[in-house]
């Protein structure tokens, strides 16, 4: 009884979130475009599927994954876990003692990104538009590796207390250099994949990790140091997606050279 009530609650939340979009689309459709939407019935059914799907999805996450994931983030960042029960040791904790935190950060960043619905949407579209040259699965894995790396580095930054903007600016420099060498077709998609990675699944777990870490590492403040993980998670996928495109281009070139040579 309680569970079905929760779903209704999530559903009404989702509908409320979508309301502005619906008003804008139908407003422009009726007042400006003044043409019927093709296959209106199918589109409306699709919209209902999306709403129901998101409500189930969010509710399921809330029941199954978020409580244990958040608890886990707190437990792993707890100095008592990292250094056993020895009180004095807490003060001399080094960045190396957080290995499990970095591992968890990388693993959770990777795995939540694979399940991220907005990334899936972009990947489906990219496969369709590229005629299959960019595979849904390849793009998602490339992005997920980027998020995993980014979040692991971001937790290291919180532990070591180094300024966020140095990392971000260095990342920008790498992105710009890669842009010069990456295949032109991938660039826009790579830039997009930075923004889509962080949404419904990733943000709550990663935020819990950042805030937990910043409030337990000595000398950090949750307010000042807890943020910035999302920024890492939006920057690194650009690097890995362009890297993925560069790699497959090189491999293709190498393969065509080989066949060329055997053909001679």
């Amino acid at each position, binding site marked *: 009884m309680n569970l079905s009530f929760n779903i209704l609650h999530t559903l009404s939340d989702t509908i409320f*979130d979508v309301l*502005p*979009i619906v008003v804008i689309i139908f407003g*422009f459709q009726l007042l*400006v*475009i003044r043409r019927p*939407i*093709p296959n209106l019935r*199918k*589109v*409306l*059914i*699709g*919209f209902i*599927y*999306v709403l*129901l*799907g*998101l409500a*189930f*999805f969010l*509710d*399921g*996450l*809330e029941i*199954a*994954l978020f409580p*244990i994931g958040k608890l*886990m983030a707190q437990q792993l960042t707890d100095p008592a876990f990292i250094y056993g029960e020895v009180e004095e040791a807490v003060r001399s904790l080094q960045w190396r003692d957080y290995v*499990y935190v970095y591992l968890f950060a990388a*693993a*959770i960043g*990777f*795995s939540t990104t*694979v399940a991220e619905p*907005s990334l*899936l*949407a972009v990947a*489906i*579209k*990219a496969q369709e538009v590229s005629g299959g040259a960019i595979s849904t699965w390849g793009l998602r894995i490339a992005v997920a590796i980027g998020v995993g790396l980014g979040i692991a580095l971001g937790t290291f930054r919180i532990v070591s207390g180094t300024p*966020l*903007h140095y990392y971000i*600016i260095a990342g920008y420099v790498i992105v710009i250099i890669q*842009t010069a060498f990456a295949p032109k*077709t991938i660039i*826009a*998609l790579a*830039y*997009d994949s*930075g*923004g*889509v990675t962080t949404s419904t699944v990733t943000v709550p777990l990663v935020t819990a990790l950042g805030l937990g870490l910043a409030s337990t590492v000595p000398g950090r403040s949750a*307010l*000042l140091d807890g*943020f910035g993980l*999302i*920024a890492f*998670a*939006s920057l690194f996928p650009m690097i890995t997606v362009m890297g993925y495109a560069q790699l497959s281009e090189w491999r293709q070139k190498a393969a065509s050279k080989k066949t060329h040579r055997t053909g001679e």
Partner: protein
Amino acid sequence: MKDFILPFLRSLLDSLRDLLPILLVISFFQLAILQQPIPNMGEMLYGTFLVVLGLTLFVQGLEMGLFPLGEAMAYAFARKGSLIWLLAFAFALGFGTTVAEPALIAVADEASKIAAAGGAIENTPQAMESYATGLRFTVALSVGFAIVIGVVRILYGWPIQYLIIVGYAGVVIMTVFAPKEIIGIAYDSGGVTTSTITVPLVTALGVGLASSIKGRNPLTDGFGLIAFASLTPMIFVMGYGMLIG
């Protein structure tokens, strides 16, 4: 009936596969590293079932509803040929979907706490409330602005990297001048603005526009709208921090 059930089952399996990594990571850390049992096994299974079902429905709805809708709008605007209305729609879509975004509301509240703790604003509920609201509208404005720029870029076929590099330069310059406390929030606000329903719609709009205009490639020109929407909030939020602080 068979035509419907088999693809649906396959789609369910796909969703289960998408979810598998999270389940593995969580069980591994719980059992092997923290060495604790998994609590509420029944609830875990029920929740996982809901997530799998939800993801499957979402993907079906995406192909049936959101993608065709975004593309239909793009074609209709291209056929109408009115730049002003297209840009008005682009702005409204960016602004309207961001201003009510729950993740943004959470970030804005957090930012107002930081500003109050740092002494940039008075430490009263009213001052914090108005700071958070101002921040939300700032971000929403910046996303509306971003989609407009992105649409103009698609129309004229400008290469995306020049615009993005200018944006990065903007972020770096603003970082030098912005109050220190706002920087983390500003950088994060770029990532949280794009919601799960906005992304497919905006992507379909961009790809639809690029494929309906002669000489544009849907792959190189159609993508990139989300990139602008994640970049401008950083600049605008730091600007807001400077203005208020």
